[in-house]
């Protein structure tokens, strides 16, 4: 069926036609012109009214007799035009209005929703695809997807017009915009390709469409000033006259009913309904009608209370809640003003008495555990003090508590717990957070004159959890949204794209976003093996493994719910395990100082886990948690990993698996952007023996690991959690010579800074290899030897004045004794 015929079958056709004839722009322009004419006509007529009887005016009477009736005529015609346009606006917006209040409001014979009809109407002379691109909805969708206009125009012009033979299938009785999008995505391969190249999936396309529809509906909805919800925002003149005054409570609290979150339609969150219903049921009980909201730190608990306030205002709740005031007590203010037991007890009792006497208050305590702690500190029996009030039939209390504090301070107190209905506030899903963000974005857009793309909002919602694991995701996402608008404005941008979000997060966290590289970083990533090999000799497998892990992480194809990489380096001492970690830090993460190092032999005692993640009882932060919180992006070296105790190993088992851990306060610590390198001497003896007998330990990796597991050092599940277990083989003579060359090179470089040139000879290198290595410690003694024999002797000569800046020196070996010669 041709679109035109299909369109005409619906009663909405006339509305679409009216809208096409009189577009929003035309209506605005005509209304503006006619208002101006009305204004000037009235001004002229008023002037005429005052001057018509004056003697001077008699001369112009004939002109006035001709002009004045015509001005009246213009005035009347323009009044009629303005009124007609008002009616037309009312007519058109009523269609949107019905779409908003009930998605199923349309009758079957209307065939399609108004938004879907607008797309079909735009494509009546071409096809649906062209219609979609042509329609105002389509154009806004592309804007919200961040696709530049010229690219759309190119695609539009290149795409041949193929009139539809079959109309899109509808999921319900009437065609919705979603049906059109699914149809276009599945049948128009070129459209599909066009979006896929831009990395836009069908879900994202539908998300952007929903965002646009929501914006239009919201705009139309706000025009309906006569709605019950709008008028309910205005407080009644005599609302408080029948209820008691709360002088003291007002000092320590605020009325939640006045909060923007309660009065803004855009900020209402329907996904909180189950929790709100639970509160409603709890508060309706005849006595002990109190609710305890438990959730992660952040505003989510308050969001539920705001939801309750909104329902009270709209009258969408039990009648007994009408005219109730939801008042939140600030425990911080109480803490500041109550310095002793008597004051605290008196103030709390008076406040609660006021609440009961007022008769219209739902009393919210913003942090019950903090109040309990305060009273305990001041020596007050708080629970017994408030218990009679909580049991009172005329009081309704909603207490808020963080989950960790609930377990610590409330759960064990059965009396207190018995007075409350406990309600756990569930964290919102990413989809729900996106919904909240889209509505908040519209408000921010208005304030900052900025546009958010749908993909930017989606990225913000996803990033909130990934980069900021503490607190509630929706809170974090909302704060990011509020922060990014002024940031974008400062950077001279009027549109926030997905890339801007990544840049913003990068600036905020110092963690580079996956898939975004600077040219220097790109060069480094591609040549990582080469760059590390300049510092680490003879351990190609290890270098390849860490380089690969880093490339996978930066390109964004790794599992983002685990650390960036976790490796177990096994092998004898002095073969380059630690050096590999240092080299990685030096090459990629800015410098050796950026490597975080934990000497695991320090964590052998039973309280090692406490030392690492902190202890609640001692109130001491953990070494590891503080370290990775400060630097969320880098390398962590876990040296001598086998020496730590089993509890610590279990902690790292979870860390390698989930990419986060909880510290002493139950706060999540993110380690998803960290490469862990655990080094161990376990199996060193076996590796050494293998090399001695001419075997390559790499070929016997499984055997070595099996021996380590059977010795009980590491559990098999821990070994399996590592992204790679790498066997470091003992170094060959050539490797050792290269290492000696490298180390001497570093000494020479330091001497150059002092103006002294050190000539590195083969004789010196051989001396260092011969005396600075052994079977047990590998190349480790080399450094010591260079320090003692070479650096020490040069230093002595510098102090005595034998060597000065501008000298060239060389080491001479005589009878295996090193001496320094000036050349």
């Amino acid at each position, binding site marked *: 069926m041709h679109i035109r015929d299909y369109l005409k079958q619906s*009663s909405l*056709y*006339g*509305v679409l*036609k*009216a809208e096409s*004839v009189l577009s929003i722009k035309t209506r605005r322009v005509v209304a503006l012109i006619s208002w101006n004419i009305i204004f000037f006509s009235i001004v002229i007529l008023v002037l005429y009214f005052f001057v018509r009887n004056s003697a001077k005016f008699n001369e112009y009477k004939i002109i006035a007799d001709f002009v004045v*009736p*015509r001005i*009246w*005529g*213009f*005035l*009347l*015609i323009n*009044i*009629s035009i303005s*009124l*007609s346009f008002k*009616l*037309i606006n*009312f*007519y058109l917006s*009523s269609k949107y209005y019905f779409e908003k209040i009930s998605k199923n409001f349309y009758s079957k014979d209307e065939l399609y929703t108004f938004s879907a009809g607008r797309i079909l109407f735009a494509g009546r002379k071409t096809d649906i695809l062209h219609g979609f691109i042509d329609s105002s909805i389509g154009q806004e969708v592309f804007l919200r997807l961040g696709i530049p206009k010229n690219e759309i125009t190119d695609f539009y012009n290149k795409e041949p017009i193929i009139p539809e033979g079959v109309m899109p299938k509808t999921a319900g009785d009437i065609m919705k915009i979603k049906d059109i999008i699914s149809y276009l995505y599945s049948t128009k391969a070129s459209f599909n390709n066009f979006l896929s190249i831009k990395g836009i999936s069908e879900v994202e396309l539908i998300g952007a469409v929903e965002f646009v529809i929501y914006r239009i509906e919201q705009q139309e909805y706000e025009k309906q000033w*006569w*709605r*019950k919800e709008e*008028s*309910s925002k*205005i407080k*009644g*003149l*005599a*609302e*408080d*006259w*029948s*209820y*008691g*005054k709360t002088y003291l409570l007002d000092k320590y609290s605020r009325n939640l009913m006045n909060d923007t979150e309660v009065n803004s339609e855009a900020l209402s969150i329907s996904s909180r309904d189950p929790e709100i219903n639970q509160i409603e049921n709890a508060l309706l009980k005849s006595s002990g009608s109190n609710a305890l909201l438990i959730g992660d730190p952040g505003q989510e608990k308050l969001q539920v209370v705001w939801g309750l306030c909104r329902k009270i205002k709209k009258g969408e709740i039990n009648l007994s809640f009408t*005219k109730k005031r939801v008042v939140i007590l600030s425990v911080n203010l109480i803490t500041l003003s109550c310095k002793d037991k008597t004051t605290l007890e008196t103030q709390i009792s008076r406040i609660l008495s006021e609440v009961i*006497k*007022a*008769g219209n208050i739902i009393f919210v305590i913003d942090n019950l555990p903090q109040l309990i702690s305060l009273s305990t500190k001041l020596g007050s029996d708080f629970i017994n003090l408030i218990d009679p009030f909580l049991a009172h039939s005329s009081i309704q209390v909603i207490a808020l508590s963080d989950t960790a504090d609930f377990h610590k301070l409330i759960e064990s107190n059965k009396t207190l717990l018995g007075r409350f209905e406990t309600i756990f506030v569930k964290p919102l899903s990413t989809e729900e957070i996106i919904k909240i963000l889209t509505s908040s974005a519209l408000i921010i857009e208005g304030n900052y004159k900025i546009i958010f793309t749908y993909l930017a909002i989606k990225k913000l919602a996803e990033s909130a959890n990934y980069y900021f694991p503490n607190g509630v995701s929706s809170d974090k996402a909302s704060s990011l949204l509020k922060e990014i608008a002024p940031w974008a404005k400062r950077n001279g941008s009027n549109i926030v794209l997905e890339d801007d979000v990544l840049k913003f997060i990068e600036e905020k966290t110092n963690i580079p976003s996956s898939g975004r590289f600077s040219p220097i970083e790109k060069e480094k990533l591609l040549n990582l093996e080469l760059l590390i090999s300049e510092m680490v000799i003879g351990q190609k497998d290890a270098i390849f493994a860490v380089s690969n892990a880093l490339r996978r992480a930066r390109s964004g194809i790794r599992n983002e719910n685990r650390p960036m990489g976790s490796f177990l380096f096994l092998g004898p001492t002095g073969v380059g395990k630690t050096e590999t970690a240092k080299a990685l830090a030096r090459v990629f993460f800015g410098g050796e100082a950026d490597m975080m190092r934990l000497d695991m032999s320090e964590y052998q005692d039973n309280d090692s886990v406490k030392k690492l993640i902190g202890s609640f009882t001692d109130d001491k932060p953990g070494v590891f948690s503080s370290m990775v919180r400060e630097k969320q992006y880098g390398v962590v070296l876990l040296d001598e990993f086998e020496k730590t105790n089993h509890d610590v190993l279990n902690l790292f088992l979870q860390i390698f698996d989930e990419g986060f851990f909880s510290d002493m306060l139950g706060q999540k610590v993110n380690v998803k952007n960290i490469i862990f390198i655990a080094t161990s001497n376990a199996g060193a003896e076996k590796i050494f023996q293998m090399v001695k007998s001419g075997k390559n330990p790499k070929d016997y990796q499984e055997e070595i690991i099996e021996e380590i597991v059977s010795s009980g050092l590491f559990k098999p599940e821990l070994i399996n959690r590592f992204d790679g277990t790498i066997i470091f083989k003992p170094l060959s003579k050539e490797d050792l010579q290269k290492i000696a060359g490298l180390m001497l090179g570093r000494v020479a470089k330091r001497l150059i800074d002092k103006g002294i040139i050190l000539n590195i000879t083969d004789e010196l290198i051989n001396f260092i290899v011969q005396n600075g290595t052994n079977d047990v410690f590998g190349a480790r003694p080399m450094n010591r030897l260079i320090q003692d024999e070479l650096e020490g002797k040069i230093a002595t000569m510098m102090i005595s004045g034998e060597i000065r800046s501008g000298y060239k020196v060389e080491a001479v070996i005589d009878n295996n004794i090193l001496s320094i010669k000036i050349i």
Partner: protein
Amino acid sequence: MAYFTTGWYNIHMNFLLVLGNYLKWHYSKAIYNVFSIWKNISIFIFNFFSIKSLFFNLFSPWKRLSENYPKFINIKEYLGTLIVNTIMRVVGVLLRSFMLILGLFCFCIFLITLPFIIIIWLIFPLIILYLIITGIILIFFS
């Protein structure tokens, strides 16, 4: 015949179609919409003056200000409390009555506007037509 095949014919037909649809809405669904708006405004006035609350709490003490009667018989104290509580109730009754009368007056005034609003809505297209015709007459024929 030429007229039927030209763009003018289409424009006129479209205009008639749009006008027809509009008038259908104006005299059907829109009346219900106007009634809903009127109802919402009435409810708003009712709530704005807190009529229900004032009516049910007409004799309550002003802002629940009251004193507790002594637990042991003490005539002086008892009378003192009685006087204070009575004053509070009297103040409450006076102020509430004033607001209640004012509210009911506004509410009733608005209630009786419904027939006028509906009539104006029904003749609205005619008013517009009248304004246009009068305007044209004034411009061209006066």
